[in-house]
Structures are given as C-alpha cells and as structure tokens.
C-alpha cells in the first residue's frame, strides 16, 4: 500500500469518526520516554493506530514540560491527548486547556475504581495507572506498616528518597499522615524523617542509588516505588514490595483530552483504550504499575508484585495535587533544613 | 694510594658505551683537566666522581674510602656546572651559604660570615643581596665558584665552567681560577673541550677519546710530545705526516728524503711536526711545498702548505711573507720532530 492511499484511508476514517469533512490532521500525544514510552507504544499507541487507522505522533515531554507546552499553545493546541504524572491535569483543567469527558463517553468508565474518575467532574481525564510508593524489603524484615521504618533492627539499613524525587515527597507526606499531620501542617512528617535520620537512615536521591544501596547490602528496607522494586528484581536482587497497612500514596498517571482540537472524539477513544482492562494489565505486566480498572485479572505471580484488587486499590492514598504543587517549594526548604548535617 | 683513585670505571647508556674502563690516580692538591671532544665521556666521568651517575663497573675511592655507592650529598665534593646552577629564588649570599646550611655544621652567623668571605675571594661581596638573575654571566660564574669553594670540598669538580663566557672574560676567569687554586690548594678536576684552556690551567691533562684515556701526561709534556695522531690533532697546532722509514732515511709522500735521528724501525710511520716549530725558508731540514692559503692572525701568520699528499700548517712571524701559489721551502730542526706511538 502506498503512502498516498494509506493517507487517504486515514482521512476517510477520520472524517467518518469525527462526522466532519475536514482533512485528517496528525494525531499527537505525549509520552515519557525510555522504557515507559516503549511500553506505551506497544500497549496503546500501536493497537490504537491499527484500530482507528490513524498515525499517532508521539512527542516525548514530561508532565511539567507538557503543561508548559500546552499553555504556550492555548490558542492553537498541538496535542490531542496529553498524559500527566504529577497532578498537572488539575491545573490544566482549571485553566480550560482540557476538554471535559463525561462518563457516557467512555465505554470502560464503569470498570474504573471511583478514585480514578473522580477528576472527571472538574474536567480532568481518568487515571489509567498508578505507580505506588511502598516499602521495599530484602526479605530479612517483613514490614507491614510505615512504622516498621522506625523499628528496623538496624536504623542504618533504612533508606528513603530525597524530596527532589517525587517518591521522597510522597514518603514525607505519607509519614506525616501516619503521624497525624495534615497538608497544612507537615511538621509531624519532618519530625518522623528526623527521627529516621537519627536512627542512621540514609537519604538517596536517585533510583540507581537505591539499587546500589541494596546491592551493597547497605540497605535492607526502603520507602520507594513498586515499579522500581520490579527493576531491582530484574537485576537479580531479592526485593519484595509491601503495601503497608496504612495505605500507599502513588503517582497517578492520567490521560486527558486537549480542548480545541478537531479530533476530540478520536482522543476520547484513545483515552478509553488507555483505561481498558487489557491495556492496564499490560502496564502491570510491563512496569508493575497498579491498574485502576477493577476488572483487570493478573496471573498469580504478577499479582504478588503489584498493588492490585479492590482492597489494595481502596488503600491507595492521594494527596491533593493543588495543595502539593502550591506547597512543594516551601516543603523542600523545610526538608533541606531538617536533614542537613 | 693517591688521594683520588678511579679504577676501571665503565658506564653504559643503553647500548652506548660511554666509558670503557677508566683508571686514574689524582694527587691531593693537583689541578687535572679532562680534555676531549664532545661525547668522549669526560663529563660522564666527572658526574661519576660527583655521584650524579652510578658506574656500571669499577670504583671511586677518595682519601682511602670507597664512595662508589655513596649519594652525592655524602661525598663532600663541590661541583660547578656549565649552567652555573645558581638557585634563582635565593640571594647571592644565600646561594653561597647553601652548602654550609645543608651541612649544618655551624651557626647561621658563622655561615653568613664564611659566605661573605668566599664572595670577597671572588670580589663580589658588594652583590651579596642581589638575586642571581640581576647579575651578568661573569658575575654569576664567580658566585658559582664562591659557592663551590665556600666549604673546602675534598675535590672541586668544574664542568666546562668557562664555555659560556666571552673571550675576554674567559681569560680573566682562567687567571682567577689559577690564582684560587694556588691560594686554596684544592684538588681540582676540570672538564673542557678547549685544549688551550686545559694546557694553560692544569698541571696534568687527561685526554679522552671514545670513553677511554688517549693520553695522560703533564701539560708541557703532552704539548711537546702528543704521542698519538689523535692527540696531536686534538691538541692542535701539530702536523701529522705519513712517511716511510727506509734504511737510507725518511721518505715523504712527495718523494723527498730526510735524515731524522731516532726514527722508528723501517716501514710506515707518522711524523709529528708542531706548526710553530716550522718556518718559511731553509732550515736544518727542509720540505718543498706550495702555499695554499695564508691566514692573518695579528701577531702571527698561518700558512697552509701542500707537501706531496700532505697538507701542513706553518705558524710564523709576520715578517715572513708568501702568497698562495708560491713555491716555498719549509724548514725545521730535526730535534723538534716527534714520532707518533
């Protein structure tokens, strides 16, 4: 098939779908690069191209950058679907950059956990996977609670992430919540971190450092991401992931329809595909992300490595992204002062 | 045993044999020149005496003790370098005081006193507080000399000390060196490639060639009777003629027959004639030749004369006069003739 005839077919399909006679424009989305983008292409983008006979152009842009581009293009948007992992959809929706989605426009709507679609009313897209923060243990200890970080037999074996790493921020907020703090008062969380440091805990700033620490046996218990636990297992380290009883905060990844584009219906179809059980099972398989679709069935071995199921999903904790974004700078300053030697 | 005994010294640099078994005995208080063309090993020999090079074989004995394996600082010698090697970060006085300070045998005041005395000896006491780079070449040289004699070294080693000076200064320094030698009586070894310097300064000349001693004799003796064609050539001013000794006399390459007493036994021999022992015109013995060149030298004139296959040089007074192309006779007395061994 020549390029021309393929293009013509796409145009016909698009015009049928959109109910207009407008010529097909490129369908543009963002992704996050690396292994993520690889899985993204395999699980969503390529099947989507097949199903709707469109060509999808992928722009690698992380959440903050994607929001900045979206703002800059407000008059003439260039993305059809935009993905965020840092809560930027709240801002984007408030600024009118996103096209609201109603429940009846998503065939998979009813399968999603309530937390995954609670943003729809505010004009945000649904959450299609969650990177969960929990406890990584090398098997020596069998943690069940965030408090086990404080009772580790050797305080020096504990590691948490720095606040410049989103998981570090979530650790702070989670410990804060466990210790009775609120987003208006994170002092209990800072005190908890100080207590960990006094016990000899380490603060690491990047994922490879966690791998290094586990590999050198410098750490046996860490607060970090579930998907990275999988990476460590792939590297041959005997790491278990535990979702503590108090619940796990996560990084919520949303798929949003951009306002002011001619292909909104196609974009909604893309979002709908993203939240389908098959795709979410694929994410869980590929990167150990937690599904937000209640109908996802995972094989037993996989199920043990992913926060998964009604009960576990109910245990996911989400901090208000608006407050978090507004306070992040001040918290960073407080954190730095609390941890500096 | 002499004051300084060198026995069978050998030195190799890679595959190059710099010294091939040198043995020398040097008496206390004598002034010996090591003379030879560059690459003959004279400087290497000096550096071996100083301890700056280690010989591959042989021994150096000073005043009865074997110093072959001693580092330079333990030998109590002084060496003056061609480059003077003044320490640029110290004043002239501190330079001269340096050996006393390093040997630490007396108080600072005493060291300064002795350094001033040494500077006075070379008439430079007024420049004690200058820096070496503020001094002229000749002055630097005298500072180096003062520094070498300030602590009464057992042997004074001089490595081509005059070669960086212009002709006038060199003559002055020669006189100064001789004067100092007479006053201090230091055992002195002087390396030079300048035969005039060697002859005029030292009691004894050791002529070196290709890492071996070619001729070792008192200065006047080596001058009068160089002994070998190389010595005759290197000491300059001597003509070496290849002759055939026959029962009836000595046959030159132009066929002329001469009668010279003490001729070696029949066969080929080398006849040595000093150029200042020759004159233009008839002598007791005469050679026939053609003037090839005339070199005007102020008080004297040098003629280059072709005699058969040989070219001889004749040094004469100004009043004798011939022009290139003239057929002339060169005369000499038989008792001035020497035979090469």
């Amino acid at each position, binding site marked *: 098939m020549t390029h021309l005839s393929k293009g013509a077919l796409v145009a016909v399909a698009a015009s049928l779908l959109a109910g207009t006679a407008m010529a097909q424009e490129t369908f543009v989305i963002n992704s996050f690069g690396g292994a993520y983008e690889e899985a993204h292409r395999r699980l969503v983008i390529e099947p989507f191209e097949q199903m709707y006979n469109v060509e999808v152009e992928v722009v690698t842009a992380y959440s903050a950058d994607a929001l900045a581009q979206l703002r800059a293009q407000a008059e003439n948007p260039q993305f059809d679907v935009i993905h965020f992992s840092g809560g930027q959809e709240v801002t984007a929706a408030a600024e009118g950059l996103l096209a609201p989605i109603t429940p009846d426009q998503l065939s998979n709507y009813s399968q999603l956990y309530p937390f995954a679609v609670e943003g729809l009313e505010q004009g945000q897209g649904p959450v299609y996977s969650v990177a969960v923060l929990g406890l990584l243990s090398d098997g020596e200890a069998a943690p069940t609670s965030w408090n086990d970080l404080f009772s580790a037999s050797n305080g020096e074996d504990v590691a948490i992430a*720095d606040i*410049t790493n989103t998981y570090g921020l979530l650790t702070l907020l989670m410990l804060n919540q466990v210790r009775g703090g609120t987003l208006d008062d994170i002092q209990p969380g800072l005190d908890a971190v100080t207590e960990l*440091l006094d016990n000899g805990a*380490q*603060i*690491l*700033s990047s994922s*490879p*450092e966690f791998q*290094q*620490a586990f590999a*050198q*046996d*410098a750490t046996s218990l860490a607060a970090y991401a579930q998907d990275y636990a999988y990476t460590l297992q792939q590297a041959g380290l005997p790491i278990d992931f535990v979702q503590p009883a108090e619940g796990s905060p996560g990084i919520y990844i949303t798929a949003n329809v951009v306002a002011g584009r001619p292909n909104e219906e196609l974009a909604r179809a893309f979002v709908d595909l993203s939240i389908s059980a098959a795709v979410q099972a694929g994410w869980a398989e590929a990167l150990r992300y937690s599904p937000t679709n209640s109908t996802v069935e995972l094989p037993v071995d996989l199920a043990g490595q992913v926060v998964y199921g009604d009960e576990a999903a109910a245990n996911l904790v989400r901090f208000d992204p608006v407050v978090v974004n507004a306070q*992040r*700078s001040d918290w*960073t*300053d407080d954190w*730095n*002062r609390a*941890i*500096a*030697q | 045993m002499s004051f300084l005994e060198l026995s069978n010294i050998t030195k190799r640099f890679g595959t190059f044999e710099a010294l091939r078994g040198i043995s020398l005995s040097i008496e206390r208080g004598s002034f010996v020149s090591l003379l030879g063309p560059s690459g003959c090993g004279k400087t290497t020999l000096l550096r071996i005496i*100083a*301890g*700056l090079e280690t010989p591959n074989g042989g021994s150096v004995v000073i005043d009865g003790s074997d110093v072959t394996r001693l*580092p*330079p*600082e333990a*030998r*109590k*010698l*002084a*060496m003056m*370098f*061609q*480059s003077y*090697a003044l*320490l*640029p*970060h110290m004043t002239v006085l501190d330079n001269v005081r*340096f*050996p006393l300070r*390093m*040997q630490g045998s007396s108080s600072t005041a005493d060291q300064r006193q002795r350094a001033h005395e040494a500077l006075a000896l070379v008439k430079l006491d007024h420049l004690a507080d200058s820096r070496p780079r503020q001094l002229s070449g000749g002055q630097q040289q005298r500072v180096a000399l003062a*520094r070498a004699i300030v*602590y009464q070294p057992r042997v004074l*080693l001089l490595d081509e000390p005059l070669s960086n000076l212009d002709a006038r200064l060199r003559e002055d320094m020669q006189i100064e060196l001789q004067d100092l030698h007479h006053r201090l009586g230091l055992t002195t070894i002087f390396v030079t490639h300048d035969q005039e310097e060697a002859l005029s300064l030292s009691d004894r000349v050791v002529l070196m060639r290709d890492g071996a001693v070619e001729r070792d004799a008192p200065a006047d003796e080596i001058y009068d009777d160089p002994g070998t064609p190389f010595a005759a050539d290197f000491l300059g001013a001597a003509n070496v003629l290849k002759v055939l000794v026959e029962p009836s006399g000595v046959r030159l390459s132009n066929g002329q027959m001469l009668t010279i007493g003490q001729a070696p036994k029949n066969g080929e021999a080398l006849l040595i004639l000093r150029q200042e022992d020759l004159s233009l015109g008839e002598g007791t013995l005469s050679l026939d030749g053609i003037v090839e060149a005339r070199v005007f030298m102020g008080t004297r004139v040098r003629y280059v004369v072709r005699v058969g296959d040989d070219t001889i040089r004749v040094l004469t007074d100004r009043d004798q006069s011939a022009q290139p192309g003239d057929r002339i006779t060169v005369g000499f007395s038989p008792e001035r003739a020497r035979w090469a061994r």
Partner: protein
Amino acid sequence: MPHSLRPAERGAGAFGESILLIGPGAALLIGAFLFPVGQILVLSIVPPEEGLSIWTNFARFFEDDYYLRVAWRTFRLSVIITLVTAMIGFPLAYVVARTPRVVGYTLLLLTVLPLMTSVVVRTFGWIIALGRGGPVADLLSLAGLGARDATLLHTETGIVIAMVQVLLPFMTLTTLGVISTIHPHLEEASRTMGAGFYRTLRHVVLPLSVPGLVSGSLLVFALSISSFVTPNLVGGVRLPVMAGAIYQQATSTLDWNFAAAQSTLLLAAVLGLLIPYLALTRRRHG
C-alpha cells in the same frame, strides 16, 4: 625605536584582521559568559517583593544559619580538597617531570584519564568504591581506620576523596608545567652541596614550583567551590554545598532571585581570590 613596527607599516588591513581574529572569542565571551553573568547580577538584586531593598536576597543568605553552614562547609571542603590535591599533585608532577618519558607519560595519562570520562559515570564509580563493602572502605577498615562495615558514602571524607581524583589533573598539569622548566642542574647542584633528595625537594624544587602550585591551587579551589555533581552524588543530600543548593533553588523551588544572589556570592568569593593573585603575578613579571 627604529626597529618597532608602527601600525601603518603593518599594512592597512591589520585592524580589520585583528577584529576578525578576536571576533569568535569575544562573541563567545560576551554571549556565553558576560551576558549570563550580567543576568545573574540583575536577578540577584531583584527583591522577592516590590519595595524591599535590593540587598534583600543577600541579607536572607547572611541572616540564615542554614545557608551560612552550607557556605562554611563549601569553603572548608574546598580548602581541604585544594591542600590534599597539592600534596598529591606536587610529588606526582615531580615524578612525571623527572622519570623517563614512557613512565612519566603513562603516569600522566592515568591521572588525566578521569577527565575523559563523564562526571556522572566517574562519580557512580566512586559511589561503588566508597560504599559499604566497596574497596576503599575495605582498605580503611583493613588499616584499622573504621568499622568493618564502614562506608565513606555520604561523608565529607568521601567528597574529598572523589573531588581530589577529579581535580588532581589540574594541579598536576599546572605544577608539571613549572617543574619542567626547572633545570635538573639545580637539583644536582643541591645534591653535591650536601642536600639529600628530600631536602633538595624541600629547598630547591618546592620553592621554585610555587607559581605552578599557586595557579593550580586557585584552579582547584575555584572548581571545587563551584562543583555540585560530585559533592551531591557522593556526599548525598544531607551534606549540601553551595552549588548544589543553588541548583536546587533554580530547578526545584524555582527561587531564581535567591539562587542568583548565592551565585553572585560564589563568584565574588572566587574573584576575591583570583584578583589579588593576578595583581601579584603582574607586579612580579613587571
């Protein structure tokens, strides 16, 4: 001055040619250095709220115990790094200058090699080497200097070790440049005058190497006071240094004005060392 060339004699195009030759360098200097530095200076005096003094950002730095402690650590570590680098770099440069070419240049290559690897790769190497169970920590515990399970990761000692390795080439090369100009006769003369090897090093080579050691030290100090990748990765987040704090302010908390004020102070500290040195060397060389 009959022999000097007056401008007219150099040819009519000389001025234009000079502009052409100096152009790229000048453009780079202005575009990539003076302009951003100017911008930083401007940013640093913009107060967080209108109506406040232009010194507000600087005052915040000096009134806050936290930033002063960060600055003090940065300064203290830079001094230690400079001293250690000089103590290792001087003998190394001497050996390179005075051993046969092959040996010397191999040593030099080994010293300079780290410069050819990316700072991140090199630093992760140090993280492995300095971490628990790593060879450096093991060596130290073997020598009885630390517990068996010791780690130098996230310690100031670790920062110093990793930084010294990174900066050693700068010290060695500048010092080597000076030592190579010292005539070997000076050392030989010193030896014959009764100074042993080490006293010759102390009394002859060291004083004559001072210009190289001083410029090497300035270079190392300026580089270490402003470095952040190695201190951050090896030292970890609990041992912040100024450059790391500035980086975080600029990228994470987006407080550009305060970051600019800290950058200005860092720049002032480096210039405060450099300018007296330049003035001193200029006077010495007339």
